Every structure is written in structure tokens, then in C-alpha cells.
């Protein structure tokens, strides 16, 4: 097995598992940035450069900022120490369910006879990807644009305060 893959896999799993156990929300958000960078490194290792840089831009750049803003906006107090611990019964149930899912899927993966990997994986340049995106999936590109616009407008509407406007306040 490839050495780089081992390092990337260890980094992804270790940071994600540590983030699951931490108590401070800000620390969780910052550790997950490392996880998302490691996932981008996996994409680079697999030869998907465009997806790797999109992952860095979207996850490590945008989503982590949104998460940090949400953490800071929903803080109880500047030094509120930590989250309240979860109910132990729920933790046990969640761990057993997650273990069952991982065990079942891992067993299925290990038992499935997979074709041996081809020597060199496919390489796709950004130019090829752009030309392909303008081909048959063009309708999907337009629909994704509509989805993003609708989601952002909806997010503004949901998060906007339902209270008074400026005119009402002054009157």
C-alpha cells in the first residue's frame, strides 16, 4: 500500500475522530478544517486536481467560515466552557449503530471480489472537464445554479430577524 495514502487516511480519520470527541465547538470547527484539507489531499493523490481545489475553496474556505460564524453567533457567553455532555445511553446507542454500519459495510467490501486496479488511473484536465460539463450535463449545471440561488435567498430569509424594521423602530 502506498505510503502517501496511509498518511492521508490516518490524517482524515484521526482528525475526524478527535473532532467528534472534543468539547469546545471552536476546536471542533478548526480540526475539521484539517480533515477537509486532508480530503483534498486524497483527491490530489487520486489525480482529480479540479475537485481537490474545489474542495479547498468550498469546504476549507467557505463552509469552515460559515461554521465559525455560526459558532461565534450562537455562543452563550464569551467564555462558556464547553458543551454539556451527551446522554450516555444515546452515546452507547450511536456508537453501536455506527459500529454495526461500519462492520457490515466493511465486511461486504472485503468479501466482494473487485477487479484489480488498472496501472495508471485516468487523468482529466480542467479543460476537458469544462468541455464535458458544457455537453450532456448542461441542464444539471443550470439546475445547480438555480438550487444555489434559491438556497442562498432562503438562508437569508430564514436567518433575517423577523422583528422591527428601521421605520417601525423610529416611530
Amino acid at each position, binding site marked *: 500500500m502506498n505510503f502517501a495514502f496511509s498518511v492521508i487516511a490516518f490524517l482524515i480519520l484521526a482528525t475526524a475522530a478527535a473532532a467528534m470527541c472534543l468539547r469546545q465547538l471552536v476546536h471542533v470547527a478548526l480540526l475539521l478544517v484539517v*480533515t477537509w484539507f486532508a480530503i483534498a489531499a486524497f483527491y490530489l493523490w487520486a489525480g*482529480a486536481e479540479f475537485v481537490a481545489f474545489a474542495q479547498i475553496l*468550498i469546504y476549507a474556505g467557505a463552509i469552515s467560515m460559515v*461554521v465559525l460564524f455560526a459558532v461565534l453567533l450562537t455562543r452563550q457567553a464569551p467564555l462558556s466552557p464547553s458543551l454539556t455532555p451527551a446522554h450516555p445511553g444515546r452515546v452507547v446507542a450511536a456508537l453501536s449503530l*455506527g459500529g454495526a454500519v461500519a462492520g457490515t459495510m466493511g465486511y461486504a*467490501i472485503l468479501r466482494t471480489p473487485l477487479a484489480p486496479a488498472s496501472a495508471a488511473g*485516468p487523468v482529466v484536465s480542467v479543460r476537458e472537464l469544462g468541455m464535458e460539463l458544457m455537453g450532456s450535463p448542461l441542464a444539471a449545471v443550470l439546475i445547480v445554479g438555480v438550487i444555489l440561488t434559491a438556497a442562498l435567498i432562503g*438562508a437569508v430569509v430564514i436567518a433575517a430577524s423577523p422583528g422591527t424594521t428601521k421605520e417601525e423602530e423610529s416611530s
Partner: protein
Amino acid sequence: MNPLQACLLLSTTLFAIGLVTTLARSDAILVLLGIELMLSAANLNFIAFWHFGPATAPVHGVIFVVFALAVAAAEAAVGMALIIALYRHQKNIRLEEATSLKG
């Protein structure tokens, strides 16, 4: 071990970590982050099958991941807006206390 199997086991473990986070924690932001981890695990699978699979469709795996990333960004934006609305309503974001649908 087949390298494809190693990639699939990695994404399975990441999915399980996200699932446990989503189910065990009661903080709304952590639940959303667990869902993001599960989405990332699905993206890892797309790239792994694209890289190690038969080379009949050279770009389709990448196109799938591009769309999945766009939908994940939309989901994160709406989720964080919902969390801020929840915080404004009940002054914390604990999911156990979010029991009422009325504003």
C-alpha cells in the same frame, strides 16, 4: 489488499464517524458537521471508483463530485441559517429543547 478496497474502507470509517457524531451529540452545529462528514465520505467513494474503475467514462466521476460539492454548499448555508433562527428562538442550540414547531 486491493487499493480500491482500502479507499472504500477509509470512506466507510469516515461515514461511521459522521453517523456517530450526528446521532450522539445534541448540539445542532455538530449534527450538521456530522452530516458534512458523511457527504465527504460519499465523495471519497465517487473519486475512488473513478480512479480505480474501468476507464470507459473518463470524466463522469469528477462531474458527480462537482455537483455533490455544490449541493453540500447549499445545504451548509441553509443549515447554518436554520441554526441561527433556532438560537434566536430559544437562546441555545440544544436539539433536546427544540421540541416545538411554532414560532
